[in-house]
């Protein structure tokens, strides 16, 4: 067993610079520090371009940090310990719904029969059974995103990384999928790192909401969400919800302004030199 006091994911002074070999490097992220506990549902919010996707890709191992390090503590309960759901790209138009879901299992070495059985189980849980032989092209955006979620969950990862998975969906569908995701998470409480640019979505879903600054993204605030589980998206109709959101929002505005002021003075100092 892994040490329960150790964080599942811990990031220490993580930074990422793009085009570092040129004269115009882009400092996309950090230094960024973060600890995520086992089984925690953690939401990251931040302005567009602040390095959220960059951080997620580093955790996933798709990209290396320029400095610092991320440690991911694995229990060894899954062959594919980290699975990712992207905003749009990711499910293959040349594979049927079922083949898409089987993909992660088959490349993980599962036999076709077992993979099929497991894929059908997850298709059922996401309400996709009747579409299993369709190509993604024929599906609506919400259905396609369900396929992506089913594909990620089918490998039973220890950690689920989601990069603005619902950003392209309309408000109603978004709400439905949030509800489904909450129910799925309640069932087996995986560690989830969920990126969104909606503060509301972050509060509905997360145990904790992390707010990042503008680029280069740093931690601005980390707030525990006080609402009981199991939650439903109807939570947002509650007065407490709106109070919490408004409080967080005011707090954030202040922080963002402070941050901008700091930036301004730094720039002025730079100009004086």
């Amino acid at each position, binding site marked *: 067993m892994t040490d329960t006091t150790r964080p599942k994911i811990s990031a220490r002074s993580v930074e990422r*610079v793009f085009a570092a070999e040129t004269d115009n490097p882009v400092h996309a992220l950090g230094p960024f520090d973060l600890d995520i506990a086992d089984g925690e549902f953690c939401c990251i919010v931040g302005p567009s371009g602040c390095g959220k996707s960059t951080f997620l890709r580093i955790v996933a191992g798709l990209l290396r940090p320029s400095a610092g*390090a991320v440690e991911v503590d694995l*229990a060894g*309960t899954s062959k594919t*310990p980290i699975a990712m759901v992207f905003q749009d790209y990711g499910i293959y138009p040349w594979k049927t719904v079922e083949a898409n879901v089987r993909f992660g*299992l088959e490349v993980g070495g599962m036999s076709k029969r077992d993979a099929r059985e*497991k894929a059908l*189980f997850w298709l059922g849980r996401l309400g996709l059974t009747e579409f299993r032989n369709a190509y993604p092209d024929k599906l609506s955006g919400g259905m396609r995103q369900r396929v992506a979620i089913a594909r990620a969950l089918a490998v039973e990862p220890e950690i689920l990384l989601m990069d603005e998975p619902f950003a392209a969906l309309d408000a109603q569908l978004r709400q439905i999928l949030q509800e489904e995701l909450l129910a799925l998470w309640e069932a087996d409480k995986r560690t989830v790192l969920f990126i969104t640019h909606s503060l509301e979505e972050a509060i509905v879903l997360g145990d904790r909401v992390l707010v990042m600054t503008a680029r280069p993204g740093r931690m601005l605030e980390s707030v525990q969400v006080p609402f009981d589980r199991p939650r439903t998206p109807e939570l947002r109709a509650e007065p407490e919800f709106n109070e919490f959101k408004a409080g967080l929002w005011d707090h954030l505005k202040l922080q963002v302004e402070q941050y901008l002021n700091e930036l301004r003075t730094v720039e002025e100092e730079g100009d004086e030199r």
Partner: protein
Amino acid sequence: MTNTDPNTTVDKRGPRVLRREPGVAEIKPRAHVRNRKAAERALAIGVPAALLLLWQLAHHYEWNLLGYWKIDQRFYASPYEIVTSEKLREADFWRDVWTSTRRMLIGFALGAGAGVFIGLAMGMSRLVRAALDPLLTALYTVPKLALLPLFLTIFGFDERPRVMLIAVTVFFFVWISTMAAIMAVPEGYREAAMSFGVSRWQMFRHVLLPGSLPQIFVGLRIAAGVAVLILIGVELVIPSQGGIGSLIERGRTLLIPELTYVGIALAALLGLLFTLVVRWIGRLLIPWAPEDNAPGQG
């Protein structure tokens, strides 16, 4: 973590820690890129140089490859011999190079022009497609060299049969890739343009042409290589009016192997330069496409 499904796949490596850390590329980005480029350049020059050296050695020691393929100095020229050959200095091969280049350029221009034109027309119009597709598809499979006797009968023994053969070959490559490129322009781009009420010409100018140019250039690059292939082939079959192919053949009949080697090297060089030029033009015309202007290939 509890798993509801019995069919779990457990990682046999057990508990462990994954570390995501900077690698060499992140710690010393400038040096890394510099080293990689230097290594690439060294390989690009080193591999041909090493092969030349091997060739020279094989020639010098008359190696017997695999026990039955002997490098006999009478039939094989060594790189050193070729470079220092007196006979080569006398042979006036630049005329042949120019003859071949001219044939290739004219043939390519004709074929590519017609290919792009017909390809665009067929890609944009269902009717034109219906009219020409079966015919062209059938002709596409005919080996183009088989048309040579026909062209010789029609045009006689002047430049035209050679140029036409190159043009026809190039045409088919460019036609197919252009038509496919136009039809592959995503529906979303077309609809966005239609919502602004574009005319047919505007649709072509603002959406279909730029949207398909990267693929068209993939076709043009392939066609450029094939043009050299056909050119040398034709010149070998009818070597009477000069060209690099005829140079290669002269080396054999006049017993000057150096000439044959030089001819082969020149053909390779001509093809290389020509595809590079086509690629360079592509880069100028398609600044938005990734490096190799071949989307979906990398």
